[in-house]
């Protein structure tokens, strides 16, 4: 097993990552280092492969070149059994929540515990209720996923993600489609859980304001490469015009408002 050469303070070390899908390059030499105990955000425009990066970290996809190390272990050099053991140290919150629709809220959170432990039922019940209490949904334990709002669904998924007390949680677009109250609750939860449980959090998002509020470190990815990285404050004042346009949400700049095309006048005057 590869013990790697990462610093002990680095939980995830991605180096020279190349990945393409159907001939289209997604990553062309990405280097990302995620320090332990931090909330690190991976940001970038839609379609830049942020979710793909999480799947590469989790070993669900294989890179075409480069190495992804988690806690010093080369994720893609592990066999089936070792990879599944490693995943017990990771939690992932999917954009859709990915709750099991045929199980109640309680059973969804109990699922990983039932699969990986032989805990007696009273202890398992207490653990599940504690996880649900942490996300404020102990009272919703008997509800079915179909009865939950989008925000509640993600909080249940979060309770499930922390059920096995992982070292790291990956959040895939946690704020998309949330109302302001749910958004506020999620932002607070991510930061609080990270600090209270001693986790490392990786957030993939393009919601700049919310992410910048809680992130310690931000990587901005575009066109298959890391364009810039640093603290939220540093990126807000980045020398790169593109990064400033992205971080401040400006409609025009290096990324033009208009998609390239012929002149408007010539288009309008064109006769069929």
């Amino acid at each position, binding site marked *: 097993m590869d013990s790697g050469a990462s610093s002990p303070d680095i939980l995830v070390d991605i180096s020279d990552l190349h990945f393409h899908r159907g001939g289209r390059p997604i990553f062309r030499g990405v280097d990302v280092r995620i320090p332990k105990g931090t909330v690190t955000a991976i940001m970038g425009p839609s379609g830049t492969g942020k979710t793909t990066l999480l799947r590469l970290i*989790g070993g*669900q996809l294989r890179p075409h070149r480069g190495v992804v190390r988690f806690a010093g272990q080369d994720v893609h050099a592990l066999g089936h059994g070792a990879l599944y053991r490693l*995943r017990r140290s990771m939690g992932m919150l999917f954009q859709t929540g990915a709750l*099991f*629709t045929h199980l109640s809220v309680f059973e969804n959170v109990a*699922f*990983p515990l039932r699969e990986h432990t032989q805990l007696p039922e009273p202890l398992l019940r207490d653990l599940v209720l504690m996880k649900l209490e942490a996300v404020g949904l102990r009272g919703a334990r008997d509800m079915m996923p179909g009865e939950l709002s989008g925000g509640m669904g993600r909080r249940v998924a979060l309770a*499930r993600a922390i059920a096995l007390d992982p070292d790291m949680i990956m959040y895939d677009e946690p704020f998309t489609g949330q109302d302001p109250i749910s958004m506020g609750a999620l932002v607070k939860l991510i930061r609080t859980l990270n600090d209270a449980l001693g986790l490392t959090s990786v957030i993939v998002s393009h919601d700049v304001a919310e992410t910048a509020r809680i992130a310690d470190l931000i990587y901005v990815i575009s066109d298959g490469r890391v364009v810039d990285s640093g603290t939220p404050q540093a990126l807000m004042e980045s020398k790169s015009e593109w990064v400033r346009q992205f971080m401040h949400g400006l409609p025009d700049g290096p990324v033009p408002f208009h998609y390239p095309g012929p002149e408007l006048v010539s288009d309008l005057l064109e006769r069929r």
Partner: protein
Amino acid sequence: MLGLLARLGATTISSFQRLGRGTFFLARVLTGLHSLLPRPGLVIAQVYSIGVLSLVIIVVSGIFVGAVLALQGYNTLVNFGAEDALGVLVALSLLRELGPVVTALLFAGRAGSALTAEIGLMKTTEQLSGMEMMAVDPLRRVIAPRLLAGFVSMPLLAAMFSFLGIMGAYVVGVGALGLDGGAYWSQMQDAVDFRDDVMNGVIKSLVFGFVASWIAVFEGYDCVPTSEGVSSATTRTVVHTSLAVLGLDFVLTAVMFG
């Protein structure tokens, strides 16, 4: 013409790729089957979902197929004064052919399509990915119990179908058409061989159960994760299973009775 050839080539390559993926998928599922040994409850729950919930359509179809066989068979046999052989005709038709084949076709429509849609939707809503990230292998937790349950359920359903078909034919032949009940059963007992007729039918239904379940779970697992993708996969399950069952039935019949 060139375009047609290109499309034909592309379709052929794609079919072989799919077959390769399906075989690789099956190998991965079969190597994980041992993980079900300590958890028989997972398979039993699926036997209920796949087998028990299919009983209504099997029971109704079995009775009516038997009843129709009796009507049609009687009308032909009576011309030769051989109407007492109705029981033999019905039993051999059901045990050798109709039981396994019709059950498999009904299974594809009722349980196979449901399996594909369920697994496809789990994939579309990232439930399978979620399971992987919870360090639970979906091939072992979701796919293997369903494959095994389909394999176990099919011969039981086919046996039920054949039994009810024979009873349906008895009601029509003896009850409505006035045949002698003793002749119906005794001729059947004389003509039906346990190994040649009953066991060959069971072997057929085991093969059909395995193939139908494999196609159903593979199509769900391999589908494009969109609503259209799930819909196409469900259709493919019914079509491919039906064609596979009919083709395999010919091969098995040729080997067993040819």
